[in-house]
């Protein structure tokens, strides 16, 4: 039994020994094969990991690009060009325009009447402008003036334009009366405005509704205002009276096939209201010398009405603007109270020698100033005749002194405008004004003035 067990043990050892003898030489080969499989597996795993990393990186880039594109689509745009400096939301509903109006003038008074004014170089207008839109339908406009050593808010208003035929404007702005007054100062054809503009308000505070009854052909405006003196502006009402103003202007051939009449426009402004103690105006010549002042102790009282038939005609390089203003002022001095009529008219013609089309706004030169590239801008000739008169009663009732204040002035102005480009202009005007009355004996000496202006305006 024991021998059997020993034999079994011996045989088992022999089998193991033989097995080892067979396997031992193969062991390195098997181990190498197993190791290679593992390495392949590891490499596959690493390739998978790297593949995932590359795909994730690519996807992240795609998402970042899409995000950047979406942000760019919604981003506000900033532009700086002939239209000024603008910041605009992507949908156009929000806009800020930063503009400026700078005018540097030289006034030289000539001849016997030189004592009427002082020669000077001055900053006529220094007006930064902030305007634009909020929430698509509300425009705003703010323009102070720092010219001539004073700070004055000229325009400050907002306008709801939800319905183009009934835009509502609130704030301080030009009442809808005079044609030339409604023309922007950088668009006028002369350094200084004409005589009818002396008799209409400059800026007033109030409410206005305006729009096109027939698009681009029939325009209306109507509003209620504090009421200001002729050519005046104010930030507050002096009395409880209000001025009511309205204007209807037609451009019946605008946009039609009748080319010769497309630039024809005509209409009338009107205003009226009570006055009681408002400041009295002082009227100035083209040289900005005061030629008409009321006598001391005179105040506004009663009513003031203005009527201003007006029109223009533009065809090709030719332009014509004409306007008549009749103002009746209620005046009072002591117990004397009367309505006095003031009248003024002008006819102004212009012609652009370089062929650009003339319009109510400044021309855009075909070739902006750039001599190296044969660009010289646009050159325009301008002539204006104008007249101002107050009715004779102004002396009879003691509202003005015949010895110091002419009740009649007649002017003619000739000028040249050089538009270097759409924003920059140089103007030279020669103005001659003759007076009726206003001197101890006879007439006040005529004013002869040479005006030059360097102007940049963008808005």
């Amino acid at each position, binding site marked *: 039994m024991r021998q059997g067990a020993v034999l079994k043990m011996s045989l088992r050892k022999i089998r193991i020994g033989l097995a080892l003898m067979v396997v031992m030489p193969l062991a390195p080969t098997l181990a190498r094969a197993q190791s290679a499989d593992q390495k392949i597996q590891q490499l596959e795993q690493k390739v998978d990991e790297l593949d*995932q990393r590359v*795909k*994730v990186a*690519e*996807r*992240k880039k795609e*998402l970042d690009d*899409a*995000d950047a594109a979406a942000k760019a689509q919604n981003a506000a745009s900033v532009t700086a060009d002939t239209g000024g400096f603008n910041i605009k939301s992507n*949908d156009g*509903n929000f806009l800020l325009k930063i503009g400026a109006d700078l005018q540097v003038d030289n006034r030289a008074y000539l001849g016997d009447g030189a004592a009427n004014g002082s020669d000077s170089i001055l900053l006529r207008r220094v007006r930064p402008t902030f305007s634009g839109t909020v929430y698509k339908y509300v425009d705003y406009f703010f323009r102070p003036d720092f010219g001539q050593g004073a700070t004055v808010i000229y325009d400050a208003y907002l306008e709801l334009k939800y319905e183009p035929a009934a835009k509502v404007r609130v704030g301080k702005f030009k009442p809808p009366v005079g044609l030339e007054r409604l023309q922007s100062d950088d668009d006028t054809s002369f350094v200084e405005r004409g005589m009818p503009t002396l008799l209409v308000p400059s800026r007033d505070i109030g409410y206005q509704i305006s729009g096109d009854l027939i698009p681009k052909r029939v325009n209306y405006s109507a509003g209620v205002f504090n009421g200001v003196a002729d050519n005046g502006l104010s930030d507050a009402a002096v009395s409880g009276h209000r001025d009511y103003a309205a204007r209807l202007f037609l451009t019946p051939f605008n946009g039609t096939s009748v080319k010769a009449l497309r630039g024809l426009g005509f209409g009338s402004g009107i205003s009226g209201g009570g006055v009681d103690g408002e400041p009295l105006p002082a009227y100035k010549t083209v040289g900005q010398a005061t030629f008409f002042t009321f006598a001391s102790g005179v105040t506004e009282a009663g009513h003031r009405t203005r009527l201003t038939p007006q029109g223009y005609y533009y065809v090709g390089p030719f332009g014509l603007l004409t306007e008549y203003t009749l103002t009746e002022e209620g005046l009072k001095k002591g117990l004397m109270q009367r309505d006095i009529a003031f009248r003024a008219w002008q006819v102004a013609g212009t012609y652009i020698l370089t062929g650009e089309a003339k319009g109510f706004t400044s021309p855009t030169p075909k070739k902006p100033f750039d001599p190296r590239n044969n660009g010289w801008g646009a050159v325009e000739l301008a002539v204006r005749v104008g007249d101002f008169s107050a009715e004779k009663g102004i002396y009879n009732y003691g509202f003005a002194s015949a010895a110091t204040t002419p009740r009649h002035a007649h002017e003619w102005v000739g000028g040249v405008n050089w538009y270097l480009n759409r924003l920059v202009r140089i103007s030279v005007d020669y103005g001659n004004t003759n007076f009726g009355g206003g001197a101890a004996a006879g007439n006040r000496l005529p004013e002869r003035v040479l005006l030059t202006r360097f102007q940049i305006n963008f808005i």
Partner: protein
Amino acid sequence: MKLTALLLAAAVCYAAGPVKLLNVSYDPTRELYQNINAAFAKQWKAKTGADVVVNQSHGGSGSQARSVIDGLQADVVTLALAYDIDAIAEKTGLLPKNWQSRFPDNSSPYTSTIVFLVRKGNPKRIKDWNDLVRPGISIITPNPKTSGGARWNYLAAWGYALRQNNNDESKAKDFVARLYKNVPVLDSGARGATTTFVQRGIGDVLLAWENEAFLAVNELGKDKLELVVPSISILAEPPVAVVDNVAARHGTATVAKAYLDFIYSPEGQEIAAKNYYRPRSKEVAAKYDKQFPHLTLFTVDEVFGGWQKAQKKHFDEGGTFDQIYQPGR
């Protein structure tokens, strides 16, 4: 009264051509609303004689809500979660704050839940939420800041972690932080995340709307993807609402309400179920019972106290999501 309104609507429609509605919806509802819109147009035509065209806009639910707040003229919104419509109501006043009470079931005509989509054979052996936080697992889920589905994903994980840890908030936060550590990229919407996972082949598991997961499996083939149902998930209740002021301005208030009512109708519920949204109608739900997996579902109200609280705590600026997820990490 209703008849008069319908007649009036029909008359207006007849006079002015087809009525146009804009439905601003979230990312994965494209197919659902294509079907709903066609069926509703047919029904509306039969009922009133008028044509109606429903235009669709899709994107991350949060982004879509932002677009409406910024002026997108939606007649109706059908978003991923109530908070996004609350935001529209609060920030614009275009619809009343009680908008959710104006349609049945809190204005949520269908529900869904969050499940997992994995590669065929489930090579990473992902069975439940706790598998997602294992090292080496790559999870695809969209950005909760822009996607409603992503917020449901996040809250589902948080709810699971709370249950596993006896409502221990810090442990839940740690769990979700570990989960997001495994997220390599955040898409802006659920459909984008599906594209990332299915078409780009990125990640081991997609946290997906149930309907989106079914759609992906059916479209790409059962030989490539598998749907994994976790032990517990969240009951997602996407709401709908008429944007009153816009619809009034467009003259579409009547048709807009009819459109949303239609989703609750038997036909609308059937369409929802066919698109793998869980219908509210008991009859339709019973009919499609076998289609939807059975699992324990918790609601936002139960676990988080409602969307307002959940949003403020987790997704607002500086909330827990901002604390646990750092982009580009």
